[in-house]
């Protein structure tokens, strides 16, 4: 079966440029809730001096990872911020000191067995760098007797337009990518790995296959994916690489699959060598009013106003997006900080605001839905407040890839309505 998908424009102008490192920002705003899971409690007080890499927040909750300071400086304030995806969280404002000094705790972790490996993964502060931001150590701590995982799937699809961070990671740190994959395979006893990557990245594919050949790693294969959106969505990627369909309500683990982002495994390899936790983030800076599209390394917590400085814009933006253009969020506050899961910041000035018109029943939304849903019908069911129908049509399977909204000639916000419908179902549990 060939899954439905949509062809998107690429706009990957930043792909062949080496990642730059702009000067440190004057202050960082580090959210204590960077990822899916429980927010952290601050470990430092206002007025404390912190060093780069120092743990400044942690939590005892099952699904949580610590947060580290990304700069050397002084904790100025604790504020409440509204993140771009609508969550309210506490955040620490740290004023950057001129001298960057690493915290003394930073040294390569000692790995002896699986338990110490998982502990190190947690301490690294690692979360899924693809965008969803699920804590990596939670993903890795599965019970092998219940869910025998036999395939590690590496998500290097990067199907969103503009975004090139994962591609740059492969091009600049292909050794780390390889070592990270081997590391996870070794400690979790996973026999084989598949790297799913869109086939318009032949250089990255060649680089990785050379290393695989050189190291004689028979267990690792590369699966070139078609140039269609959304190849990088977890369920779609699993289908494309293994042919398995994830059943409704089940996790990939139940089908023996573990999916990790390529930048995540690369970071893990780097952490095991240096012990520097997840405090810098590679960002793609692009958009139709950006003169010089590029990737930059910024400390986690860099506020948007600092990013604009290094963006070199042609005119004032009227739309700023955190994340890719398909699944990213509109930013509305110049203080919005970069989090561990921000992969791109896009500046637009010439895309018009869309106005909805009447649905003409063209059926394009149905033809592009990878999950085989009927977005048109879901929307009418939501408008009619028909909860049983929404349930029967499986609106809960919508992964908000927004391919339907993209193709809609009437410019209807179909995907948004699906999210509202999901919320409606949550509020009206049978």
């Amino acid at each position: 079966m060939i899954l439905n998908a949509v062809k998107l424009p690429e706009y990957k102008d930043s792909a062949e440029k080496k990642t730059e490192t702009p000067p440190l920002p004057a202050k960082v705003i580090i959210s204590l809730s960077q990822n899916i899971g429980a927010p952290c409690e601050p470990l430092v007080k206002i007025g404390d001096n912190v060093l780069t890499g120092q743990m400044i927040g942690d939590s005892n909750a099952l699904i949580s990872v610590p947060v580290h300071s990304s700069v050397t400086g002084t904790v100025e304030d604790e504020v409440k911020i509204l993140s771009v995806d609508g969550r309210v969280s506490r955040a620490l404002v740290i004023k950057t000191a001129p001298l960057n000094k690493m915290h003394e705790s930073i040294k390569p972790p000692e790995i002896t067995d699986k338990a110490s490996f998982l502990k190190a993964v947690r301490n690294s502060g690692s979360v899924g760098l693809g965008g969803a931001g699920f804590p990596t150590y939670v993903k890795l701590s599965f019970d092998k007797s219940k869910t025998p995982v036999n395939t590690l799937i590496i998500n290097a699809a990067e199907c969103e337009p503009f975004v090139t961070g994962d591609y740059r990671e492969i091009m600049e740190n292909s050794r780390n990518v390889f070592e990270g994959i081997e590391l996870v395979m070794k400690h979790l006893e996973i026999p084989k790995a598949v790297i799913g990557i869109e086939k318009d990245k032949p250089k990255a594919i060649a680089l990785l296959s050379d290393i695989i050949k050189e190291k004689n790693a028979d267990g690792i294969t590369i699966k070139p994916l078609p140039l269609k959106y959304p190849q990088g969505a977890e369920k779609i990627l699993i289908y494309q690489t293994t042919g398995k369909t994830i059943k409704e309500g089940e996790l990939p683990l139940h089908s023996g699959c573990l999916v990790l982002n390529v930048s995540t495994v690369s970071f893990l390899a780097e952490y095991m060598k240096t012990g520097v936790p997840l405090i810098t983030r590679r960002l793609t800076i692009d958009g139709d009013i950006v003169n010089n599209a590029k990737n930059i390394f910024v400390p986690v917590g860099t506020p948007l106003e600092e990013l604009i400085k290094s963006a070199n814009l042609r005119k004032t933006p009227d739309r700023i997006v955190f994340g890719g253009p398909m699944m990213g969020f509109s930013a509305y506050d110049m203080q919005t900080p970069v989090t561990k899961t921000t992969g791109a910041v896009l500046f637009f000035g010439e895309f018009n605001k869309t106005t909805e018109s009447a649905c003409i029943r063209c059926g394009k939304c149905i033809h592009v839905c990878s999950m085989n849903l009927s977005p048109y019908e879901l929307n009418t069911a939501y408008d009619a407040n028909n909860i049983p129908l929404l349930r029967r049509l499986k609106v809960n399977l919508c992964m908000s890839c927004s391919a339907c909204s993209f193709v809609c000639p009437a410019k209807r916000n179909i995907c948004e309505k699906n999210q509202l419908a999901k919320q409606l179902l949550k509020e009206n549990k049978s």
Partner: protein
Amino acid sequence: MNKLIIEPNPHIRSDNSTKQIMLTVIIALVPAMLASVIIFGARAALLISICVGSCVLFEYLFRKMFKKSRTIGDFSAIVTGILLAFNLPVTLPLYMAVIGSFVAIVIVKEMFGGLGQNFANPAIVGRIVLMLSFPAQMSNYAVPFYYKDGFDAVTTATPLSAESPDQIPPMLDLFFGKHGGSLGETCSFALILGFIILLVMRIIRPATPLILVGTVALGTFVFSGFNTDETLFAIITGGLLLGAIFMATDYTTNPMTLKGKIIFAFGCGLIALVIRQLAGMPEGVAFAILTMNIFTPVIDKITRPKPLGMKDSKTVKEAEASKKDGAGEVKNDVKGEVKNNVKKEKNNEQS
């Protein structure tokens, strides 16, 4: 700093729009429009303008009267107007064309809620109402190129109602539209050109027209005792191509999935065939499409795609049932064990 636009994802949109789709359809209709003017003279152009003008005007007035948003900018009324004119003979009194436009736009389209909400193709219903109300005028077909001889329109019959083979003009003439018929249906060449435009611009999929025409062709082939001439004749005369290419493919009134479109087109072809072969009318495509329009919601329902990895309610129920059974077994086991233990204890006590 100007105000930032806050919108839900996606933040980029495809280039296609309703207006652009309608414009492409209009462009695809241009060859047939030119052909109709060449074949039937200036009055064809007048009739088309009257239909388009009245359709747009009716839509504007209706929406204004009911305080709805203005929608004539999406060009869909223009498409309806052209299609309606294509279904009329060149000799039709102009006021009848206006009545047709009223039926199409006000009754069929706007009263059901406007663009995208109508269950039947407006132009087709306009044609059918006119056909039933003014049967004589609606079958008053003009002889092609009558205007060259300086005559007023001389009328003829559509070749579909020809009784003997001698009345049938040569096939090539038929193909280029040199025969009686309504404005837009005679020139097969121009219609096929329009079909190619629609395909290249990816406005329609080839399935609906091909299956519809294929069904009629195959059926005629069989009914006529495997006569290729008669089959070809059935395809290029009458409203079959016009209906199959421009009316059966109307987004709003045909099913949305490919499977649905195949069922729809096959149904149209079958009904058109039955009407042509068995009923007393020379032409059945309009009725066939209208009938299948009515089936569209049902077809949509039965051809709904199955969500990826979906657990249908049946399997969910089974799973729950087996869980319950499983739990029951465990309980029984526990009970059994407890009983055994009690027995053992009793035995111990006894001993």
